[in-house]
Protein backbone atom coordinates (compact mmCIF):
# COMPACT_ATOMS: atom_id res chain seq x y z
CA UNK A 1 0.00 0.00 0.00
CA UNK A 2 2.89 2.33 0.83
CA UNK A 3 3.98 2.18 -2.80
CA UNK A 4 0.61 1.59 -4.47
CA UNK A 5 -1.08 4.79 -3.30
CA UNK A 6 1.66 7.17 -4.53
CA UNK A 7 1.86 5.27 -7.81
CA UNK A 8 -1.90 5.52 -8.26
CA UNK A 9 -1.87 9.24 -7.47
CA UNK A 10 0.98 9.76 -9.96
CA UNK A 11 -0.88 7.83 -12.65
CA UNK A 12 -4.22 9.51 -12.02
CA UNK A 13 -2.92 13.08 -11.90
CA UNK A 14 -0.53 12.53 -14.81
CA UNK A 15 -3.24 11.08 -17.03
CA UNK A 16 -5.68 13.80 -15.98
CA UNK A 17 -3.26 16.57 -16.90
CA UNK A 18 -2.48 14.98 -20.28
CA UNK A 19 -6.16 14.71 -21.17
CA UNK A 20 -6.98 18.19 -19.84
CA UNK A 21 -5.07 19.65 -22.80
CA UNK A 22 -7.69 18.18 -25.15
CA UNK A 23 -10.83 18.61 -23.04
CA UNK A 24 -11.92 22.29 -22.85
CA UNK A 25 -13.85 22.13 -19.54
CA UNK A 26 -10.71 20.74 -17.89
CA UNK A 27 -8.26 23.27 -19.33
CA UNK A 28 -7.71 24.97 -15.98
CA UNK A 29 -6.67 21.71 -14.29
CA UNK A 30 -3.00 22.37 -15.02
CA UNK A 31 -2.97 25.76 -13.35
CA UNK A 32 -4.95 24.44 -10.37
CA UNK A 33 -2.49 21.63 -9.75
CA UNK A 34 0.39 24.08 -10.05
CA UNK A 35 -1.19 26.13 -7.27
CA UNK A 36 -1.78 22.96 -5.19
CA UNK A 37 1.91 22.11 -5.51
CA UNK A 38 2.98 25.62 -4.48
CA UNK A 39 0.84 25.32 -1.33
CA UNK A 40 2.28 21.90 -0.49
CA UNK A 41 5.83 23.13 -1.06
CA UNK A 42 5.27 26.03 1.33
CA UNK A 43 4.19 23.66 4.09
CA UNK A 44 7.10 21.39 3.30
CA UNK A 45 9.39 24.29 4.19
CA UNK A 46 8.82 23.41 7.86
CA UNK A 47 10.67 20.14 7.20
CA UNK A 48 13.60 21.87 5.55
CA UNK A 49 13.81 24.72 8.02
CA UNK A 50 13.57 22.30 10.90
CA UNK A 51 16.35 20.19 9.45
CA UNK A 52 18.56 23.22 8.98
CA UNK A 53 18.12 24.21 12.62
CA UNK A 54 18.65 20.69 13.89
CA UNK A 55 21.91 20.21 11.95
CA UNK A 56 23.40 23.50 13.13
CA UNK A 57 22.22 23.22 16.72
CA UNK A 58 23.78 19.73 16.86
CA UNK A 59 26.99 21.12 15.41
CA UNK A 60 26.96 23.86 18.02
CA UNK A 61 26.25 21.51 20.93
CA UNK A 62 28.96 19.04 19.99
CA UNK A 63 31.46 21.77 19.07
CA UNK A 64 32.12 20.14 15.71
CA UNK A 65 34.56 21.68 13.24
CA UNK A 66 33.66 25.25 12.21
CA UNK A 67 30.87 25.44 14.85
CA UNK A 68 31.10 29.28 15.16
CA UNK A 69 29.63 29.59 11.66
CA UNK A 70 26.58 27.70 12.85
CA UNK A 71 25.91 30.55 15.29
CA UNK A 72 25.79 32.93 12.32
CA UNK A 73 23.38 30.62 10.46
CA UNK A 74 21.05 30.15 13.41
CA UNK A 75 21.13 33.82 14.36
CA UNK A 76 20.40 34.95 10.82
CA UNK A 77 17.59 32.43 10.43
CA UNK A 78 15.98 33.36 13.76
CA UNK A 79 16.36 37.10 13.21
CA UNK A 80 14.73 37.16 9.77
CA UNK A 81 11.97 34.77 10.83
CA UNK A 82 11.11 36.85 13.90
CA UNK A 83 11.36 40.21 12.19
CA UNK A 84 9.29 38.96 9.25
CA UNK A 85 6.50 37.27 11.19
CA UNK A 86 6.07 39.88 13.92
CA UNK A 87 6.92 42.87 11.64
CA UNK A 88 9.45 44.12 14.17
CA UNK A 89 10.92 47.43 13.05
CA UNK A 90 8.19 47.87 10.45
CA UNK A 91 7.02 51.50 10.21
CA UNK A 92 3.48 50.38 9.42
CA UNK A 93 3.22 47.97 12.32
CA UNK A 94 2.01 44.41 12.22
CA UNK A 95 -0.69 45.08 9.63
CA UNK A 96 1.73 46.50 7.07
CA UNK A 97 3.40 44.65 4.23
CA UNK A 98 6.43 42.66 5.38
CA UNK A 99 8.51 44.35 2.64
CA UNK A 100 7.39 47.89 3.49
CA UNK A 101 9.97 50.61 2.90
CA UNK A 102 12.10 51.25 5.96
CA UNK A 103 11.25 47.96 7.63
CA UNK A 104 14.12 45.98 9.15
CA UNK A 105 13.20 43.05 6.91
CA UNK A 106 13.53 45.18 3.78
CA UNK A 107 16.70 46.87 5.01
CA UNK A 108 18.40 43.51 5.62
CA UNK A 109 17.27 42.42 2.15
CA UNK A 110 18.64 45.60 0.55
CA UNK A 111 21.91 45.87 2.45
CA UNK A 112 22.83 42.27 3.24
CA UNK A 113 21.16 39.81 0.89
CA UNK A 114 21.37 41.87 -2.30
CA UNK A 115 25.12 42.59 -2.01
CA UNK A 116 25.81 38.95 -1.09
CA UNK A 117 23.86 37.68 -4.08
CA UNK A 118 25.63 40.12 -6.36
CA UNK A 119 29.00 39.03 -4.94
CA UNK A 120 28.33 35.37 -5.66
CA UNK A 121 27.09 36.20 -9.15
CA UNK A 122 30.22 38.30 -9.71
CA UNK A 123 32.36 35.19 -9.18
CA UNK A 124 31.20 34.09 -12.61
CA UNK A 125 33.42 36.71 -14.24
CA UNK A 126 36.50 35.11 -12.75
CA UNK A 127 35.36 31.55 -13.31
CA UNK A 128 34.49 32.21 -16.97
CA UNK A 129 38.06 33.38 -17.51
CA UNK A 130 39.67 30.39 -15.82
CA UNK A 131 37.29 27.93 -17.51
CA UNK A 132 37.93 29.52 -20.93
CA UNK A 133 41.69 29.39 -20.41
CA UNK A 134 41.48 25.71 -19.60
CA UNK A 135 38.80 24.56 -22.02
CA UNK A 136 39.39 26.44 -25.28
CA UNK A 137 42.42 24.55 -26.55
CA UNK A 138 42.76 23.35 -30.14
CA UNK A 139 43.12 19.68 -29.26
CA UNK A 140 41.23 18.44 -32.30
CA UNK A 141 39.21 19.72 -35.25
CA UNK A 142 35.98 20.24 -33.32
CA UNK A 143 37.78 22.01 -30.50
CA UNK A 144 39.47 24.32 -33.03
CA UNK A 145 36.13 25.24 -34.59
CA UNK A 146 34.75 25.91 -31.10
CA UNK A 147 37.79 28.06 -30.34
CA UNK A 148 37.35 30.17 -33.49
CA UNK A 149 33.60 30.60 -32.87
CA UNK A 150 34.26 31.61 -29.26
CA UNK A 151 36.78 34.19 -30.42
CA UNK A 152 34.38 35.71 -32.90
CA UNK A 153 31.57 35.90 -30.34
CA UNK A 154 33.87 37.37 -27.65
CA UNK A 155 35.14 40.01 -30.05
CA UNK A 156 31.69 40.64 -31.53
CA UNK A 157 30.28 41.46 -28.07
CA UNK A 158 32.68 44.40 -27.77
CA UNK A 159 33.11 47.62 -29.79
CA UNK A 160 36.54 46.34 -30.93
CA UNK A 161 34.83 43.80 -33.16
CA UNK A 162 33.47 46.57 -35.38
CA UNK A 163 36.73 48.51 -35.20
CA UNK A 164 38.85 45.53 -36.27
CA UNK A 165 36.76 44.76 -39.36
CA UNK A 166 35.46 48.22 -40.27
CA UNK A 167 37.59 48.09 -43.45
CA UNK A 168 35.52 45.18 -44.87
CA UNK A 169 33.39 46.52 -47.79
CA UNK A 170 29.59 46.68 -47.41
CA UNK A 171 29.08 43.97 -50.02
CA UNK A 172 30.92 41.58 -47.72
CA UNK A 173 29.47 43.05 -44.51
CA UNK A 174 28.59 39.56 -43.26
CA UNK A 175 32.31 39.10 -42.64
CA UNK A 176 32.40 42.01 -40.22
CA UNK A 177 32.92 40.53 -36.76
CA UNK A 178 29.66 41.77 -35.15
CA UNK A 179 27.62 40.50 -38.12
CA UNK A 180 29.53 37.23 -38.07
CA UNK A 181 28.79 36.91 -34.36
CA UNK A 182 25.09 37.53 -35.01
CA UNK A 183 25.15 34.97 -37.84
CA UNK A 184 26.79 32.37 -35.57
CA UNK A 185 24.08 33.01 -32.94
CA UNK A 186 21.24 32.93 -35.48
CA UNK A 187 22.32 30.00 -37.64
CA UNK A 188 24.64 27.26 -36.30
CA UNK A 189 23.88 28.07 -32.65
CA UNK A 190 20.14 28.23 -33.31
CA UNK A 191 20.20 24.93 -35.21
CA UNK A 192 22.07 23.26 -32.36
CA UNK A 193 19.80 24.78 -29.71
CA UNK A 194 16.69 23.66 -31.58
CA UNK A 195 18.04 20.13 -31.96
CA UNK A 196 18.86 19.95 -28.26
CA UNK A 197 15.43 21.38 -27.35
CA UNK A 198 13.66 18.78 -29.55
CA UNK A 199 15.70 16.01 -27.93
CA UNK A 200 14.95 17.38 -24.47
CA UNK A 201 11.24 17.55 -25.27
CA UNK A 202 11.17 13.92 -26.35
CA UNK A 203 13.27 12.94 -23.33
CA UNK A 204 10.75 14.65 -21.07
CA UNK A 205 7.91 12.76 -22.77
CA UNK A 206 9.68 9.45 -22.30
CA UNK A 207 10.65 10.18 -18.70
CA UNK A 208 7.17 11.43 -17.85
CA UNK A 209 5.54 8.31 -19.33
CA UNK A 210 7.90 6.12 -17.33
CA UNK A 211 6.93 8.00 -14.17
CA UNK A 212 3.19 8.00 -14.93
CA UNK A 213 3.12 4.31 -15.83
CA UNK A 214 5.12 3.41 -12.74
CA UNK A 215 8.06 1.95 -14.67
CA UNK A 216 10.36 4.40 -12.88
CA UNK A 217 9.92 4.38 -9.10
CA UNK A 218 13.28 5.13 -7.57
CA UNK A 219 12.23 8.65 -6.63
CA UNK A 220 9.66 7.07 -4.29
CA UNK A 221 12.36 5.14 -2.56
CA UNK A 222 11.24 1.98 -4.30
CA UNK A 223 14.41 0.25 -5.32
CA UNK A 224 12.61 -2.57 -7.09
CA UNK A 225 11.69 -0.33 -10.06
Amino acid at each position, binding site marked *: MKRQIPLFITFFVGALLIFSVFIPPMESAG*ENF*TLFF*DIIAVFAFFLGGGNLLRVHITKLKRRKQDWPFSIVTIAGFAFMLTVGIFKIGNPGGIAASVTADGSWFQEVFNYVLTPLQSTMYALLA*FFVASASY*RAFRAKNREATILLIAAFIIL*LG*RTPFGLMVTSWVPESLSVLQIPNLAIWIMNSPNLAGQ*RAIIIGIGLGVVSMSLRLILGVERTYLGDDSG
Partner: protein
Amino acid sequence: MANIGIIISLVIIFGGLLALLIRSVKSKEVDRRVIFLFIFVAVAAPILFPVTFSEKASPVVKAIFNKVESLPAGSKVLLSFDFDPAMAPEVQPMANAISRHCLYKGHKVIFMSLWATGQALLTQSLQDFILPGFPEKRNAVDWVNIGYKAGNEGVLNVIITDFRKMFPTDVNTVPLDSIKIFDDIKSCKDLDLVVSIGGGKPGPKEWILFVGDPGNVPIGVGTAAVVAPQLYPYYPAQVVGILGGVKGAAEYEYTLKETHSRFADMDTPGLRMMGPQTLAHVVIMSFIIIGNIIYIAGRRREKKRR
Protein backbone atom coordinates in the same frame (compact mmCIF):
# COMPACT_ATOMS: atom_id res chain seq x y z
CA MET B 1 42.69 61.89 -14.62
CA ALA B 2 40.39 59.18 -15.94
CA ASN B 3 42.42 58.94 -19.16
CA ILE B 4 45.67 58.64 -17.29
CA GLY B 5 44.21 56.04 -15.01
CA ILE B 6 42.89 53.91 -17.84
CA ILE B 7 46.14 54.20 -19.75
CA ILE B 8 48.16 53.06 -16.74
CA SER B 9 45.75 50.17 -16.21
CA LEU B 10 46.04 49.13 -19.86
CA VAL B 11 49.81 49.25 -19.65
CA ILE B 12 49.76 47.03 -16.56
CA ILE B 13 47.36 44.56 -18.14
CA PHE B 14 49.02 44.28 -21.51
CA GLY B 15 52.48 44.30 -20.03
CA GLY B 16 51.52 41.43 -17.77
CA LEU B 17 49.90 39.53 -20.64
CA LEU B 18 53.04 39.96 -22.71
CA ALA B 19 55.14 38.53 -19.89
CA LEU B 20 52.80 35.55 -19.58
CA LEU B 21 52.90 35.09 -23.36
CA ILE B 22 56.68 34.85 -23.27
CA ARG B 23 56.45 32.34 -20.39
CA SER B 24 53.88 30.31 -22.29
CA VAL B 25 56.40 29.38 -24.99
CA LYS B 26 58.13 27.33 -22.31
CA SER B 27 54.71 25.65 -21.75
CA LYS B 28 54.44 26.92 -18.19
CA GLU B 29 50.80 26.81 -17.06
CA VAL B 30 49.30 29.95 -15.56
CA ASP B 31 48.01 29.73 -12.00
CA ARG B 32 44.29 30.45 -11.91
CA ARG B 33 44.88 33.09 -9.23
CA VAL B 34 46.93 35.09 -11.75
CA ILE B 35 43.98 34.88 -14.16
CA PHE B 36 41.68 36.14 -11.39
CA LEU B 37 44.04 39.05 -10.72
CA PHE B 38 44.07 40.11 -14.36
CA ILE B 39 40.28 39.91 -14.53
CA PHE B 40 40.05 42.00 -11.39
CA VAL B 41 42.21 44.75 -12.88
CA ALA B 42 40.43 44.54 -16.24
CA VAL B 43 37.03 45.00 -14.60
CA ALA B 44 38.04 47.49 -11.88
CA ALA B 45 40.03 49.89 -14.06
CA PRO B 46 37.18 50.97 -16.39
CA ILE B 47 34.88 51.29 -13.36
CA LEU B 48 37.32 53.59 -11.56
CA PHE B 49 38.33 55.42 -14.75
CA PRO B 50 35.16 55.32 -16.88
CA VAL B 51 35.48 54.76 -20.59
CA THR B 52 32.49 54.43 -22.93
CA PHE B 53 32.18 53.39 -26.55
CA SER B 54 29.59 54.12 -29.21
CA GLU B 55 27.28 51.22 -29.95
CA LYS B 56 25.45 50.17 -33.09
CA ALA B 57 22.15 48.48 -32.34
CA SER B 58 21.90 44.95 -33.71
CA PRO B 59 18.70 43.96 -35.57
CA VAL B 60 17.18 42.16 -32.56
CA VAL B 61 17.65 45.25 -30.36
CA LYS B 62 16.51 47.65 -33.08
CA ALA B 63 13.35 45.57 -33.50
CA ILE B 64 12.22 46.04 -29.93
CA PHE B 65 13.21 49.71 -29.98
CA ASN B 66 11.20 50.29 -33.14
CA LYS B 67 8.22 48.48 -31.67
CA VAL B 68 8.14 50.85 -28.69
CA GLU B 69 8.65 53.81 -31.04
CA SER B 70 5.91 52.78 -33.41
CA LEU B 71 3.18 52.17 -30.85
CA PRO B 72 0.82 55.16 -30.70
CA ALA B 73 0.78 57.27 -27.52
CA GLY B 74 -1.50 55.78 -24.94
CA SER B 75 -0.71 52.19 -25.86
CA LYS B 76 -0.82 49.68 -23.02
CA VAL B 77 2.60 48.26 -22.24
CA LEU B 78 3.35 45.79 -19.46
CA LEU B 79 6.87 45.51 -18.07
CA SER B 80 7.62 42.48 -15.93
CA PHE B 81 10.72 42.64 -13.73
CA ASP B 82 11.42 38.90 -13.45
CA PHE B 83 14.86 38.89 -11.90
CA ASP B 84 16.63 38.87 -8.57
CA PRO B 85 19.50 40.99 -7.21
CA ALA B 86 22.05 38.58 -8.65
CA MET B 87 20.95 39.26 -12.21
CA ALA B 88 20.07 42.92 -11.61
CA PRO B 89 23.42 44.41 -12.70
CA GLU B 90 22.99 42.80 -16.09
CA VAL B 91 19.31 43.41 -16.78
CA GLN B 92 18.33 46.41 -14.68
CA PRO B 93 19.89 48.92 -17.13
CA MET B 94 17.73 47.59 -19.93
CA ALA B 95 14.67 47.57 -17.69
CA ASN B 96 15.23 51.21 -16.78
CA ALA B 97 15.92 52.22 -20.40
CA ILE B 98 12.78 50.57 -21.76
CA SER B 99 10.67 52.00 -18.91
CA ARG B 100 11.91 55.50 -19.67
CA HIS B 101 11.35 55.01 -23.37
CA CYS B 102 7.76 53.88 -22.84
CA LEU B 103 6.94 56.74 -20.47
CA TYR B 104 8.52 59.23 -22.86
CA LYS B 105 6.39 57.92 -25.74
CA GLY B 106 3.27 58.45 -23.65
CA HIS B 107 2.44 54.78 -23.25
CA LYS B 108 0.46 53.56 -20.27
CA VAL B 109 2.92 51.39 -18.38
CA ILE B 110 1.96 48.56 -16.05
CA PHE B 111 4.81 47.29 -13.87
CA MET B 112 4.75 43.88 -12.23
CA SER B 113 6.98 41.00 -11.20
CA LEU B 114 6.77 37.21 -11.10
CA TRP B 115 9.67 37.06 -8.62
CA ALA B 116 9.37 38.00 -4.96
CA THR B 117 12.80 39.63 -5.06
CA GLY B 118 11.89 41.35 -8.32
CA GLN B 119 9.23 43.45 -6.63
CA ALA B 120 11.73 45.15 -4.33
CA LEU B 121 14.01 45.86 -7.28
CA LEU B 122 11.06 47.20 -9.24
CA THR B 123 10.06 49.56 -6.43
CA GLN B 124 13.63 50.77 -6.07
CA SER B 125 13.98 51.23 -9.84
CA LEU B 126 10.81 53.28 -10.02
CA GLN B 127 11.75 55.47 -7.06
CA ASP B 128 15.43 56.02 -7.84
CA PHE B 129 15.85 55.80 -11.59
CA ILE B 130 12.69 55.92 -13.64
CA LEU B 131 10.12 58.27 -12.15
CA PRO B 132 12.49 61.09 -11.12
CA GLY B 133 12.93 61.77 -14.84
CA PHE B 134 9.17 62.00 -15.39
CA PRO B 135 7.66 64.09 -12.57
CA GLU B 136 4.63 64.87 -14.76
CA LYS B 137 3.57 61.22 -14.94
CA ARG B 138 0.78 60.24 -12.57
CA ASN B 139 0.33 56.96 -10.74
CA ALA B 140 -2.74 55.01 -11.90
CA VAL B 141 -3.12 57.30 -14.91
CA ASP B 142 0.19 57.03 -16.74
CA TRP B 143 1.77 54.12 -14.89
CA VAL B 144 0.85 51.64 -12.19
CA ASN B 145 2.72 49.06 -10.13
CA ILE B 146 0.65 45.96 -9.52
CA GLY B 147 3.47 44.20 -7.72
CA TYR B 148 4.26 40.53 -7.30
CA LYS B 149 2.09 37.42 -7.10
CA ALA B 150 3.31 33.93 -6.24
CA GLY B 151 2.49 31.11 -8.61
CA ASN B 152 5.05 31.37 -11.41
CA GLU B 153 3.41 30.40 -14.69
CA GLY B 154 0.16 29.85 -12.81
CA VAL B 155 -0.08 33.65 -12.58
CA LEU B 156 0.27 33.94 -16.36
CA ASN B 157 -2.35 31.24 -16.89
CA VAL B 158 -4.81 33.43 -15.00
CA ILE B 159 -3.96 36.92 -16.29
CA ILE B 160 -4.21 35.73 -19.90
CA THR B 161 -7.96 35.72 -19.27
CA ASP B 162 -8.52 38.00 -16.28
CA PHE B 163 -6.08 40.37 -14.55
CA ARG B 164 -8.36 41.07 -11.64
CA LYS B 165 -8.57 37.41 -10.59
CA MET B 166 -4.87 37.43 -9.81
CA PHE B 167 -4.28 41.14 -9.11
CA PRO B 168 -7.40 42.59 -7.49
CA THR B 169 -5.40 45.65 -6.37
CA ASP B 170 -2.11 47.40 -7.06
CA VAL B 171 0.76 47.54 -4.51
CA ASN B 172 -0.99 50.39 -2.68
CA THR B 173 -4.13 48.22 -2.29
CA VAL B 174 -6.09 50.40 -4.72
CA PRO B 175 -8.61 48.19 -6.57
CA LEU B 176 -7.82 47.72 -10.24
CA ASP B 177 -11.37 48.81 -11.06
CA SER B 178 -10.49 52.24 -9.68
CA ILE B 179 -7.28 52.54 -11.70
CA LYS B 180 -7.73 54.47 -14.91
CA ILE B 181 -5.15 52.46 -16.85
CA PHE B 182 -7.15 49.30 -16.29
CA ASP B 183 -10.42 50.83 -17.50
CA ASP B 184 -10.26 48.88 -20.74
CA ILE B 185 -7.89 46.15 -19.78
CA LYS B 186 -9.48 42.89 -18.77
CA SER B 187 -6.65 40.55 -19.60
CA CYS B 188 -3.22 40.38 -21.22
CA LYS B 189 -4.93 40.15 -24.60
CA ASP B 190 -5.84 43.84 -24.24
CA LEU B 191 -2.17 44.82 -24.01
CA ASP B 192 -0.25 46.25 -26.94
CA LEU B 193 3.14 45.00 -25.80
CA VAL B 194 4.57 42.93 -22.98
CA VAL B 195 8.27 43.16 -22.15
CA SER B 196 9.67 40.53 -19.82
CA ILE B 197 13.05 41.28 -18.30
CA GLY B 198 14.76 38.34 -16.62
CA GLY B 199 16.51 35.09 -17.27
CA GLY B 200 15.39 32.46 -14.84
CA LYS B 201 12.12 30.65 -14.37
CA PRO B 202 9.56 32.13 -14.52
CA GLY B 203 10.80 34.58 -17.09
CA PRO B 204 10.72 35.51 -20.77
CA LYS B 205 10.17 31.96 -21.95
CA GLU B 206 7.09 31.53 -19.75
CA TRP B 207 5.67 34.83 -21.01
CA ILE B 208 6.11 33.60 -24.59
CA LEU B 209 4.58 30.18 -23.90
CA PHE B 210 1.68 31.20 -21.68
CA VAL B 211 0.81 34.72 -22.87
CA GLY B 212 2.46 35.65 -26.16
CA ASP B 213 1.61 32.58 -28.16
CA PRO B 214 -1.86 31.64 -26.88
CA GLY B 215 -3.02 35.26 -26.48
CA ASN B 216 -1.36 36.61 -29.61
CA VAL B 217 0.23 39.39 -27.55
CA PRO B 218 3.48 40.96 -28.82
CA ILE B 219 6.31 40.02 -26.45
CA GLY B 220 9.70 41.67 -26.15
CA VAL B 221 12.37 40.14 -23.95
CA GLY B 222 15.42 41.38 -22.09
CA THR B 223 17.64 38.78 -20.56
CA ALA B 224 21.12 37.85 -19.40
CA ALA B 225 23.62 37.25 -22.17
CA VAL B 226 23.91 33.56 -21.37
CA VAL B 227 20.16 33.00 -21.70
CA ALA B 228 19.69 35.03 -24.90
CA PRO B 229 20.70 32.19 -27.29
CA GLN B 230 17.80 30.13 -25.95
CA LEU B 231 15.37 32.80 -27.05
CA TYR B 232 16.65 33.24 -30.62
CA PRO B 233 14.44 30.35 -31.86
CA TYR B 234 11.42 32.49 -30.93
CA TYR B 235 12.58 35.52 -32.94
CA PRO B 236 10.90 37.06 -34.89
CA ALA B 237 7.72 34.97 -34.95
CA GLN B 238 6.98 34.92 -31.22
CA VAL B 239 9.15 37.74 -29.85
CA VAL B 240 9.44 41.17 -31.37
CA GLY B 241 13.03 41.64 -30.20
CA ILE B 242 15.68 40.47 -27.75
CA LEU B 243 17.99 42.48 -25.52
CA GLY B 244 20.86 40.20 -24.56
CA GLY B 245 22.96 41.12 -21.55
CA VAL B 246 24.91 44.28 -20.99
CA LYS B 247 25.60 44.65 -24.74
CA GLY B 248 21.88 44.66 -25.47
CA ALA B 249 21.30 47.24 -22.73
CA ALA B 250 24.15 49.40 -24.04
CA GLU B 251 22.82 49.26 -27.59
CA TYR B 252 19.33 50.23 -26.43
CA GLU B 253 20.63 53.11 -24.29
CA TYR B 254 22.80 54.41 -27.10
CA THR B 255 19.94 54.25 -29.62
CA LEU B 256 17.66 56.02 -27.14
CA LYS B 257 20.18 58.81 -26.61
CA GLU B 258 20.78 59.21 -30.32
CA THR B 259 17.09 59.21 -31.22
CA HIS B 260 15.67 61.44 -28.51
CA SER B 261 17.57 64.48 -27.29
CA ARG B 262 15.69 64.35 -23.98
CA PHE B 263 17.87 61.43 -23.00
CA ALA B 264 21.17 63.08 -23.92
CA ASP B 265 22.13 63.37 -20.24
CA MET B 266 20.48 60.12 -19.17
CA ASP B 267 22.41 57.86 -16.84
CA THR B 268 23.61 54.92 -18.95
CA PRO B 269 24.85 52.07 -16.79
CA GLY B 270 24.73 49.71 -19.74
CA LEU B 271 27.14 51.83 -21.77
CA ARG B 272 29.31 52.31 -18.68
CA MET B 273 29.53 48.56 -18.14
CA MET B 274 30.69 47.95 -21.69
CA GLY B 275 34.08 49.30 -20.63
CA PRO B 276 34.74 46.51 -18.12
CA GLN B 277 33.09 43.93 -20.39
CA THR B 278 35.25 44.92 -23.34
CA LEU B 279 38.48 44.84 -21.39
CA ALA B 280 37.53 41.58 -19.67
CA HIS B 281 36.78 39.98 -23.04
CA VAL B 282 40.16 41.11 -24.36
CA VAL B 283 41.88 39.60 -21.30
CA ILE B 284 39.95 36.32 -21.70
CA MET B 285 40.88 36.13 -25.38
CA SER B 286 44.51 36.78 -24.46
CA PHE B 287 44.47 33.95 -21.95
CA ILE B 288 42.88 31.64 -24.50
CA ILE B 289 45.77 32.44 -26.86
CA ILE B 290 48.29 31.91 -24.05
CA GLY B 291 46.63 28.61 -23.17
CA ASN B 292 46.83 27.39 -26.75
CA ILE B 293 50.48 28.39 -27.04
CA ILE B 294 51.19 26.45 -23.84
CA TYR B 295 49.33 23.44 -25.24
CA ILE B 296 51.09 23.52 -28.62
CA ALA B 297 54.51 24.08 -27.02
CA GLY B 298 53.85 21.20 -24.65
CA ARG B 299 52.85 18.89 -27.50
CA ARG B 300 55.99 19.78 -29.44
CA ARG B 301 58.10 19.08 -26.38
CA GLU B 302 56.43 15.67 -26.01
CA LYS B 303 57.08 14.83 -29.65
CA LYS B 304 60.74 15.83 -29.33
CA ARG B 305 61.14 13.70 -26.22
CA ARG B 306 59.84 10.70 -28.12
